[in-house]
């Protein structure tokens, strides 16, 4: 393979997704879709079910109920077809840490059956752009958090995937690399690619995403463009943070917690 594999249908259609771990319901009746050329942001507090949803889309977890389609392929029935078409940047760096980036990319290019010239050209461009050359022969385990993230991002982009599934992709990246990644994402969109962007950094989501789905306790609590979301919670002009807290009904609770913390700190200072 030397280029993008085409698929039919929308990048992602998730219908009534449910995922249970024993008695715990991590994802509860979640439905959304990602259109071609669109960045869809999946926002939610820690433990909301974002990563579980990402894993179901990437074919790493089977849904307990409901279904997902990635370009018309069911990740449970056709995991290989799905994995060929997506580039996944997981939240935690799932890499072979005892390998060096050079050895790791050799492996990635080989198992994705990329043509050597295509792989070389893309890899060189990404390594240059992310300034990874210096670390190319160091064991991944010895790299900093941000550099590991760069390795993870390049591995996801190497095969020119049709859909990018990014779970906190900017985590640990310096300002320069974050800018480079944003530019790469824009280029990806120009080529009709889709992006699912999972994050809890609201500013990034606000600047990157065309539509946003806010999930809490596994459920979709609000969905739409930033403008629509603001309208939805009747806080026109408010920041996305306010929209988000209102949507997950944490605005009053957070205010109370912050006030209690402030009082406690004041008391310790007096003593």
């Amino acid at each position: 393979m030397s280029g993008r594999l085409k698929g039919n249908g929308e990048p992602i259609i998730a219908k009534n997704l449910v995922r249970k771990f024993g008695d715990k319901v991590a994802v509860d009746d979640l439905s959304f879709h990602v259109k071609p050329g669109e960045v869809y942001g999946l926002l939610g507090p820690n433990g909301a079910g974002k990563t579980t949803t990402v894993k179901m889309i990437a074919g790493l977890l089977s849904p307990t109920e409901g279904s997902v389609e990635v370009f018309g392929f069911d990740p449970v029935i056709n995991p290989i077809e799905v994995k060929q078409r997506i580039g996944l940047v997981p939240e935690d760096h799932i890499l072979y840490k005892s390998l060096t980036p050079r050895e790791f990319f050799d492996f990635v290019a080989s198992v994705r059956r990329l043509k050597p010239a295509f792989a070389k050209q893309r890899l060189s461009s990404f390594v240059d752009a992310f300034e990874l050359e210096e670390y190319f022969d160091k064991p991944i385990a010895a790299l900093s958090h941000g550099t590991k993230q760069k390795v993870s991002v390049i591995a996801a982009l190497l095969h020119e995937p049709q859909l990018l599934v990014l779970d906190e992709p900017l985590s640990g990246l310096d300002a320069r690399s974050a800018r480079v990644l944003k530019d790469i994402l824009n280029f990806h969109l120009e080529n009709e690619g889709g992006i699912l962007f999972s994050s809890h950094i609201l500013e990034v989501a606000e600047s990157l995403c065309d539509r946003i789905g806010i999930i809490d306790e596994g459920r979709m609590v609000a969905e739409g463009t930033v403008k629509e979301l603001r309208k939805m919670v009747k806080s026109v002009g408010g920041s996305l943070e306010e929209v988000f807290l209102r949507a997950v009904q944490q605005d009053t609770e957070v205010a109370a917690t912050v006030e209690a913390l402030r009082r406690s700190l004041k008391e310790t200072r007096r003593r």
Partner: protein
Amino acid sequence: MSDSVSPKESLGLRTIWRLAGKISFEVQFHSALEMSQGAFGQSIEKQIKKARSNSRMNKGMVSIFTLILAATFGFLVWATLSGFLEISPDLQWTTVALIVSVFTLMNFGFLTFWGIMQCTAFISSGAAAIGMHLPVSRSDASKLALFGYIRLFDVQIITIVVGFPFAYFVATFSPLGSLLCLAATLATVALSITVMLLLAIYFHSKIQSSGGSRFSTVIRLVFTLFFVVAIMGFSIAFQMLSFILPVIEAFAIALSPFWNWLAFIFPFSFGLIVVQATGIPGTPYIWFGAASSLLFGVLAILGIRWSGRFLTRIGAGAVVETGPSKIRPVTVKVSRVGVAVMRKDLRIAFRTPGQAIMFFLPLLMMVPFIFQFFEGTGAIHVMDILILITTPATMLSFFAIFFLSVEARGMAFTLTIPLKTETILRAKAQLITCMAVVIPIVVYVVSLLRPLTSWVSLALGVSMIPLVYVAAFLSLVLFTRIIGGGRLIGFEISQHIGQMLVVGMLAAILALIPLALYGLTWILLIDLGFPIEIAHLGGIISVWFGIFLNYLLGKILASRALRD
């Protein structure tokens, strides 16, 4: 600084010793984490608990081994001096000197090779510098580093230092000899710690600075080999305990003319002065031995003082120089999928010594059998070769499952790549098969020691290669079906011991079927009156038929049991 912090003059030795335990645990935790990264998805609490129990178990095992070794060598000294071993009185001194020297040398090797893993972790983990971040004096921070290092090997050091001198005293009732024995073990421990530290610094700087270069690969291989040598040394030493009497006797006789040279070499010089102090008559070159022992003693003291100073510097926040790194051009090597998976597994396995040892398993398992072939002069029967090859072949099929956990947490990445589970499992089975190549080589080496009764022995050895492949693949498919419902999942071996045993046993039985077919066909053909060579030929054909059946079974099972 606010008054919420209450500084103290000095922590006191007791507190430092206790805190040093935390530092040494941190280092062991780093080490254990590297060794057992099959813990995909396992909670950090579980990993800490496991690291703690592994550390205790490792220390316990090494100590028990050291005590057994000390008791065995003490017994050998007694057996030599009491006449239990039929050694002529004029060779008693050389035998006892050899026993003391070999024990000292073995412990030097074991302590150095075992310790080097944790020693490198001590330098690279930064745990030693913890003291610098605490509100303690510089002197206390340094002591914390020094004691943290010593506590890594405390139990082993105590058993080495106490075990053998005590066993020697029980065997000889010589206070002076035992005292010198104690001095010899103390010097050995000091020299071992120094060498360990020097090697750790070297490896740390080379590995960190040269990353994936060829030089670094060689260094890493050497590092892994150290570990393998330690494991093999332990294993061979244990397996040789029953052979050790004639071996010691033969070596004592062979070495007796060379003591004028050995007297200058560590640890033989110590052996010589211990024997002299015990009062065994006829000990020669005593002044040479005493002089060089004194020299090694001084070296040991200098070494331990340097180690103390170095560790103190590390504790004070000094960083080990890693040297400049050379930037190589960005390239990518695209290979066939199966080869890429195997190469990746191989690289990962060889960077974790605990996994690298698996590649030497067939050889380790064959060692005790090989020793048998040194004795006797007649031709080696096919049945002996069958016994020799059956253990590694069945065990390799069993151990295939371990290779599912080679990727450790990287398994989570494997799940994201567009490869069929069968492709990945076949690549792992092929890797296991590479290890089986050593089986026919060993059979060939054995045939050089003593003639074989039939060509069929060599043919059987070669047959183990495909046999291991099909049996390993079967066990991998079965295990994947049982624990992952037919899909690869990250797993922790310790949580699936039951399933692993069941599947492993099944794989071992499947591996045995072709060998059983060989025996049955051979007996049947002999009963039918065929010549013995025809019976052998029929047997070999049956083996390959059995392998083919297993191959078919694997193919059918893979198509039904694996999902994707």
